[in-house]
């Protein structure tokens, strides 16, 4: 991903990462790395340790073995899977954006605009937002810390397909303009596949890894996701064809994206 602002810098690297929880090993011997300007998606079935991997990489859960190296002073923007807001806690969107660091009104409005939220929502209570609005507000808050890496844990849960697609377009757009690395977790296949530079297929350990194209044809991936894989793959290809018009429009803004897509389509994978 050369040519991106800040591209290439190693943000997080893990080697031989293992995590034990409640007596069982949730993750074993995971090697992982993410660089600035890179979108990496961790894919895996429920219970495969995806969220645990994110939490271990962020330093929230202790490792039982291995090590994680984060770039010194790494600024991390985290978008949690869901935010259960107790109705007893009154919290406007504006106030939420000032957590944990207070920001000016101008900064808050800019962040809302960036994520496509109407400024009229700033005075709205957080628990009155729709699922899609809340996800965008969570993203806006994460962006306010000027993160070098965005970490999103199943951030599109509860969104419909158009909502999901536009959310991922927003992520790609943010990557293109800020040069931040993006680390995502998901179990929905096709949209994520289209939006990622690299996919890590996880099931307690790394099953396979590479560009979306390479991973989707890997036997380990097919074994993990079973019969549905063909369908998902078809959808992935279909999306690519179908979105062509849009991709062109998008490419006008971000020339490197075009290079990436061509890359994926030719099946040339760095990790192959």
């Amino acid at each position: 991903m050369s040519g991106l602002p800040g591209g290439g810098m190693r943000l997080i690297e893990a080697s031989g990462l293992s995590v034990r929880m409640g007596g069982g090993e949730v993750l074993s011997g995971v090697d992982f790395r993410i660089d600035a300007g890179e979108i990496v998606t961790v894919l895996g079935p429920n219970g495969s340790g995806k969220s645990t991997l994110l939490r271990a990489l962020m330093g929230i859960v202790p490792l039982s073995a291995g090590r994680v190296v984060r770039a010194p002073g790494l600024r991390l923007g985290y978008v949690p899977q869901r935010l259960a807001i107790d109705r007893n806690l009154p919290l406007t969107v504006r106030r939420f954006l000032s957590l944990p660091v207070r920001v000016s009104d101008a900064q808050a409005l800019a962040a809302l605009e960036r994520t496509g939220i109407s400024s009229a929502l700033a005075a709205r209570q957080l628990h009155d937002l729709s699922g899609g609005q809340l996800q965008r507000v969570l993203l806006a808050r994460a962006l306010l810390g000027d993160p070098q890496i965005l970490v999103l844990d199943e951030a599109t849960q509860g969104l419909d397909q158009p909502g999901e697609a536009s959310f991922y377009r927003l992520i790609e757009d943010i990557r293109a303009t800020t040069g931040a690395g993006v680390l995502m977790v998901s179990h929905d296949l096709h949209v994520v596949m289209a939006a990622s530079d690299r996919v890590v297929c996880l099931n307690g350990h790394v099953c396979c890894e590479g560009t979306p194209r390479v991973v989707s044809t890997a036997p380990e991936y097919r074994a993990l996701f079973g019969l549905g894989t063909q369908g998902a793959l078809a959808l992935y290809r279909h999306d690519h064809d179908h979105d062509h018009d849009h991709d062109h429009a998008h490419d006008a803004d971000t020339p490197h994206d075009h290079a990436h897509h061509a890359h994926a389509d030719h099946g040339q994978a760095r990790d192959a």
Partner: protein
Amino acid sequence: MTTRTMPTPIMDRPAMLDDFLTRAALAGTGVAIATGPLGSFVVWRRMAYFGDATAHAAILGVAMALALDLPVALGTTLVALAMAGTVAALAGKGWAMDTTLGVLAHSALAFGLVAVSYLHGVRADLTAWLFGDILAVSRGDLAFIWGGALAVAASLAWRWQALLTATLNEDLAHAAGINPARERLVLTLALALVVAVAIKVVGALLIAALLLIPAAAARTLARTPEGMALGATGVGALATLGGLALSIRQDTPAGPSIVAAAAVIFALLLAVSSLRRR
């Protein structure tokens, strides 16, 4: 009730404090400064039983302090701290909290009452520790109440942003470099201190009510966390004055009267907010 007066310089003896009713009003409003913001966290983090357990344990602290001839405030603070620490440790281990806390809260109270019965001369004063004795607040008590309440309010204000973030979502806090365990500890310490401060005002049985009811009342109109915390302090102070007025006119027990006044304010604000929403 045993009254221990702290040495006060002669210069600092405003005549206003000679009136027991003024001292009572000041004691109640002082407590409200701490219970407003802390009570809001108790509501947001669903720590109601936690507050109960800590407050009930204070009775045991009273018994121990009197038996060992130590200052009562020291006994209640230490035992409340031990109980709050135990509960926090159990919570961290993922126990089923409502049952565990129920067991701890009620057994602490029972052991405290049994312990008090061994002490001669205290039994008659028991209701003062259980329901408070705000009309007997001395100058020394007042200094302790205001000192403790201001310390609690100041430490909550100091940690405010981190506390709120950790309350909202622990992973979100972690990702921002905040340690949620440390913020929990801040609340635990604050709770123990508030119990020691408030026991004279409303008594061990009703401290949790003084944390919960004003915060719940302020919730009806608040739009931000800060609004709710300040509102809860306001409701707490108002309830103190209302309760004292009732107590003086009708000769009702002061502590329960204050809590009853808070409950009436809660009901009124609830009605106002549901009318507004229409």
